[in-house]
């Protein structure tokens, strides 16, 4: 019984991987201009120069330039958020932690908005988003330390809330005094959207996510050790300080890039690790890949809904909050935080 349950748990990432690939393919057909799958096959064969099919320029534009980058940016954003949330929760031994709650998202948003307001190009937006995210996270840690409470406890959440709120106040200030006329774009971007995703954004998010994901996945067993707490981890010979910093920098790197390309998409980093933990248990060797794949699936699913079901494309960040709040409440009620013993 135990062996079959373990076998299923070990196969979960593979099953989710297949599901994610299938969803990526299926989602090509969804959107304000639906295209059936026989037609998609014909368009792809035409683009590959295999066979002679009559296709319109609009169909080529959708299948070659519009949907693939958007689908992939959404998937990679979800992967980045899912794995970041799981890594942070494990590292800080706290089920409430997610990039949004420790201030990274707010800091990255402030950096990005500042770049837009002062008229920097996309590379500048990305750089300032990253600096903003890292600065916010450092401020959160410093504030938690000043409050003289443990870094894995409620102090961190409180400090993250304060820093995040401060950054969002900064965003409001910049929006209020913006003279560049970019306000509508800023507001829509901040709500979290994959509209306007292009190959430049895809290049950024794929580079940061793949690098970050590789490092986090390589560290997956070490995150188990970090989740024991500092004294115990150090007692079995782990340099927790160094390891924590590697994870913090990688998470900031991934989340800041996600904010730079698609704005604030909350709740994913909180919900996804909880669902993943229910599926595969707490061992980060399975939990991290599962969270990454589930995150990709979740955000891609939300984006597919927004661009095919909703009128005028509700921002994904809004939809994730609408869906995320009841899901988190349900998980906490159902599990009574089972698996967390503090």
């Amino acid at each position, binding site marked *: 019984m*135990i062996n079959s349950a*373990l076998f299923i748990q070990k196969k979960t990432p593979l099953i989710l991987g297949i599901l994610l690939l299938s969803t990526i393919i299926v989602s090509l057909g969804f959107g304000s201009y639906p295209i059936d799958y026989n037609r998609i096959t014909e368009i792809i064969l035409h683009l590959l120069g295999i066979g002679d099919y009559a296709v319109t320029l609009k169909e080529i534009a959708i299948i070659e330039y519009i949907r693939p980058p958007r689908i992939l940016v959404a998937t990679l954003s979800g992967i980045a958020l899912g794995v970041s949330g799981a890594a942070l929760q*494990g590292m800080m*031994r*706290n089920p409430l932690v997610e990039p949004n709650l420790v201030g990274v998202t707010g800091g990255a948003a402030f950096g990005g908005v500042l770049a837009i307001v002062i008229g920097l190009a996309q590379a500048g937006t990305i750089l300032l988003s990253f600096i903003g995210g890292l600065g916010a996270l450092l401020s959160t840690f410093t504030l938690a330390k000043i409050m003289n409470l443990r870094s894995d406890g409620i102090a961190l959440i409180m400090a993250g809330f304060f820093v995040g709120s401060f950054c969002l106040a900064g965003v409001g200030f910049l929006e209020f005094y913006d003279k560049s006329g970019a306000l509508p774009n800023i507001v829509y971007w901040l709500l979290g959207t994959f509209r306007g995703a292009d190959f430049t954004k895809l290049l950024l998010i794929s580079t940061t996510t793949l690098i970050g994901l590789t490092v986090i996945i*390589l*560290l*997956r*067993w*070490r995150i*188990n*050790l970090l*989740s*024991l*707490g500092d*004294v*115990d*981890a*150090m*007692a*079995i*010979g*782990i340099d927790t300080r160094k*390891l924590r910093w590697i994870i913090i920098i990688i998470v900031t790197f991934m989340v800041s890039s996600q904010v730079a390309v698609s704005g604030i998409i909350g709740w994913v980093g909180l919900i996804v690790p909880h669902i993943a933990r229910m599926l595969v*248990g*707490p*061992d980060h*060797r399975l939990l991290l890949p599962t969270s990454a794949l589930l995150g990709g699936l979740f955000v891609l699913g939300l984006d597919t809904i927004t661009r095919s079901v909703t009128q005028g494309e509700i921002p994904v960040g809004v939809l994730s909050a609408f869906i995320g709040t009841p899901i988190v409440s349900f998980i906490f009620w159902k599990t009574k935080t*089972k*698996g*967390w*013993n*503090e």
Partner: protein
Amino acid sequence: MEYAITFSNIGYTYNTQRWILRNFNGNIVKGDVFAILGPNGMGKTTFLKILLGLLKPTEGTIQEHGRMAFVPQLFQVSFDYSAFDMVLMGRANKVGIFAQPSRSDEEASMAALERFGLADMAHRPFHEMSGGQRQLVIFARALVAEADIIILDEPTSALDLKNQELILRWIHKLSREEGLTIIFTTHHPHHAHAVAKETLLMFGHDDYICGKVDDVLTETNLKRLYGVNLRQIDIDNQGEILKTIVPVYTGFHR
């Protein structure tokens, strides 16, 4: 005589106004069981942390000969890890930072669980195990770490009598059979009597005595240590004289 740990003039303070420990000197013999007793707040845990290298002494030197493992007090984990996962973590210093535990690490972990009679519970969540079983899992973790010195912070404090005996038997066994040096803190003088060869009594931050159990664990010293009356009793257990020491509570039944 070969020493596992030698400490000379150890002192520790957060600020120079108040020393938590000062002028501590002593040796812990390799392969011995060494018990540390003292009232709460007297610096026992600080001393253990210094031995483990988790705290750097403000003054003095410490020499350790061997790899150390720690069994914390009331061990709690934040996640539902299985007993097997917990033991496997003991291999941390044998697995590279970006590497994963190998099959031989897993086999060593399972063998350690078998050694403690816990193989059937390998996949049981750690937090669902009894206090005694948890302590044994952490012992197994120390064994797979191939530690030479095991440091335990009040290993019997939250256990019932049966589990207290179980832990004491394993402390004795690991010292005898594996040649491990075992250092533990306790509030039970009779536990020190049962398994330790030497003991350290911490009367104050710079006031202590250290020596053979029979010489140090006397009624006078323990009364001074805890401020309560104790009686040392020799029990004839089928020809074997066992020494123990118990508190004497008077005046409750009048």
